[in-house]
């Protein structure tokens, strides 16, 4: 029925032959796109395929070199974000654009605050913000500051802001760039319910995500971008997953999750009664060559588990042992690293990488002392070692002296992983290792993780992406409210079992 509608009405947003170059780099080389009212249009493409540039052209940040964009039959003003917003195109980016110390209402109305006699009309702002917040299912006090909100709530505040703008312009196109990257399963379900509502109200949505099951659940039609051009478009259910991946990558990706030799029985990492306020006690053991998955809802304590055991946060009790070495109760990351543990943190930009420093500076960050002779750092040796790692990890870069911040998300993640390869860490803790990473790079990261396990390292992998955990882990530890809800292995490893344990509904799987 929906397709029937879309074939009858002209598209709300029409893009034809869009081209844009930055210097020698052709970021967009011919994009066609039709977005209809009342549809969720999935935009697929690897990092670097041109999605961000396309979005930036649509939201008025970049002026296209060629091609035309019309909204509701009228050409879209180019090169002015304000105009595009007023014309009815609003984008919600992956990184939040909220001002933490302003109130929720002030954020919702940022840049278009209601005024009376030249002064801010707080009463009206709060009243209208409340209505918008209710539309996204948030019962927040509009006067409270944004600081302290959870990721999911912050996201919904942004969406409330977007809805406010779209209301003011009389409807338009709302773009969600990886809206679920930081959300737990039940929050995703909630968001999708909301999206379905807005869809029936005639809103047009562009939806970007790398998670195929999610796209299946919410997408009506899809356009695939590769190398800056649209290479496939049509109803979502007209494509198999494989076809979409092939269109995106331009080649076959056979096995997303690599096969591995069975894990040993020989425990390498042992954690006993790890505790902190509102956390634990958690005990676990990971054998050489094993990948232990950690699942749970947002706030279940998965990240905390890694940080406590790594000494990034202070634990109030418990023992951590790597092989024969017992770590102190007041351990710091320095001690954990010394014992052979490495952490790939969940937030690459703020915890993982020094973005302004070079790839090589980041790769050798944990082993700089090994390149120091008589007090001086051997730059040539660093370049040699880093170049080797870059090749081994297939990090796509011109040179190891390039700033880490200039790499794509997937390649940045490989640099963080490479740091522990460089150090030859024995236990590697991975916190959402593929968040915001496209399919091609994902497969490579999975391969690296599998290789490390095959070398006899113990891996602990936290992920909100269940298919990924099920595909990679030997066992899955499920956390709920700071405690271990259970450990699944073998035949018990199913999505249903994990969800049942994570939410606490029903018995053990």
């Amino acid at each position: 029925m929906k397709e029937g509608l879309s074939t009858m009405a002209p598209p709300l947003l029409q893009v034809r032959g869009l081209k844009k170059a930055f210097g020698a780099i052709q970021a967009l080389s011919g994009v066609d796109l039709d977005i209809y009212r009342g549809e969720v249009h999935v935009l697929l493409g690897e990092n670097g395929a041109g999605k961000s540039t396309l979005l930036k052209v649509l939201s008025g940040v970049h002026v296209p070199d060629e091609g035309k964009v019309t909204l509701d039959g009228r050409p879209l003003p180019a090169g002015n974000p304000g105009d595009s917003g007023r014309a009815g195109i609003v984008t919600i980016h992956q990184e939040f654009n909220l001002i933490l110390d302003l109130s929720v209402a002030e954020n919702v109305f940022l840049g278009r605050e209601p005024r009376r006699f030249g002064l801010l009309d707080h009463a009206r702002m709060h009243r209208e913000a409340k209505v918008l917040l209710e539309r996204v299912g948030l019962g927040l006090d509009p006067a409270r500051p944004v600081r302290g909100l959870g990721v999911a709530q912050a996201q919904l505040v942004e969406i409330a802001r977007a809805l406010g703008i779209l209301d003011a312009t009389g409807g338009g196109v709302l773009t969600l760039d990886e809206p679920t990257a930081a959300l737990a399963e039940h929050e995703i379900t909630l968001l999708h319910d909301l999206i379905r509502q807005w869809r029936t109200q005639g809103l047009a949505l562009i939806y970007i995500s790398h998670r195929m099951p999610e796209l299946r659940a919410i997408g009506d039609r899809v356009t695939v971008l590769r190398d800056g051009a649209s290479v496939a478009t049509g109803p979502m259910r007209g494509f198999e997953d494989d076809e979409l991946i092939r269109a995106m990558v331009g080649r076959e990706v056979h096995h997303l999750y690599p096969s591995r030799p069975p894990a040993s029985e020989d425990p390498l990492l042992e954690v006993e009664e790890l505790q902190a306020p509102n956390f634990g006690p958690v005990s676990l053991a990971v054998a050489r060559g094993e990948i232990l998955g950690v699942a749970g809802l947002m706030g279940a304590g998965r990240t905390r588990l890694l940080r406590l055991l790594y000494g990034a946060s202070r634990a109030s009790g418990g023992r951590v042992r790597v092989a024969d070495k017992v770590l102190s109760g007041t351990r710091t990351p320095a001690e954990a690293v010394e014992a052979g543990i490495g952490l790939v943190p969940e937030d690459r930009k703020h915890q993982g990488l020094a973005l302004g420093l070079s790839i090589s500076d980041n790769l050798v960050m944990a082993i700089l002392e090994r390149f120091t002779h008589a007090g001086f750092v051997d730059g040539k040796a660093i370049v040699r070692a880093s170049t080797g790692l870059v090749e081994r990890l297939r990090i796509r870069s011109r040179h190891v002296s390039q700033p880490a911040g200039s790499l794509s998300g997937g390649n940045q993640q490989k640099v963080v992983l490479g740091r522990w390869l460089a150090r030859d860490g024995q236990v590697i803790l991975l916190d959402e290792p593929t968040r915001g990473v496209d399919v091609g790079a994902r497969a490579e990261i999975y391969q690296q993780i599998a290789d490390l396990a095959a070398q006899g390292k113990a891996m602990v992998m936290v992920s909100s992406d269940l298919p990924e955990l099920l595909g990679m882990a030997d066992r899955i530890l499920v956390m709920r409210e700071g405690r271990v809800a259970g450990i699944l292995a073998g035949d018990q490893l199913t999505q249903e079992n994990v969800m049942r344990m994570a939410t606490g509904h029903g018995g053990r799987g």
Partner: protein
Amino acid sequence: MTGAMPTKIEAAGLRPWIRQSMPLVALLLLMGLFSLLSARFLSFENLGNIAVQSSHIGLIAVGMTFVIATGGIDLSVGSVLALSICAAGLTMAPAESGGAGQGVLAGWGAGLLTGALAGGVNGLLISRLKLSPFIATLGMMSVARGVANVLTDGMPVEDIPEGALALGTGDLAGMPWAVLLWVAAALLGGLVLGWTRLGRYACALGSNEEALRLSGVRPGPWKGSLYVLSGLLSAAAGLVFLGRVSNAQPSAGVGFELDAIAAVVIGGASLMGGRGSMAGTVVGVALMGVLRNGLVLLDVSAFWQQLVIGVVVVLAVLLDRWRTN
């Protein structure tokens, strides 16, 4: 992060190279302008004067480059310089002038130790008590000045022994000691910034301290020691200054922090941290020195000098931003 690292230069290509040499180009252009406007400017003697007069700011700026690379700031350098001078003066001046009469070497030692201690307090406040560098060093700026005044009762310490004046006015085979000391500190500083863990961690601290910590490096001791370095270099600058003015004034060094910060920033460092170049800092110090000297030669009033220098600092940073984007 460091102009001198081989890893940088290999792949830096043309543009970063141009970027890094822009302060130098500006310096040369300015020198060309002044030599056209004033016949006295380009004399060997005048250039020597500029070098000597810039040397104490030059020494402070070496330490400041490290601190700024970490994303920090040291506002206490001018006051620490004054306190170190007073400690040195009181140690070396004869008893009849209120000193301890312990000789020049002991005086220098006391001065340097005082600077290092003050820097150490800054370092502890920042790395252990997690005070922001601005606040910690703002406090030290006042405390060090206060202690200097208390020790000397607000009066300059006179009768500084002859030997201590060598640092300010003496020379080695025609090269003034002050300039030699500055050059040595800058060379050594460049080496440390580019080729030691201390220097590389300084930039890593400024770029992303949490990433460094999660890589297993304890950030505290490294960060703290950079403030010690800054205090030590402020004291060294003080000893040079003492040699030139020949009495130890508790009121010395007011506003030096601004000159040093300006020089570092003109040299291409970012106040956000993660980036700093010792060669750039030296050029920045020289540029400020040339500007002051040239304006004096052209009989520009001190009030106008202040105005021009302020404009130049802001322009330099704007230009740098424009180059970066």
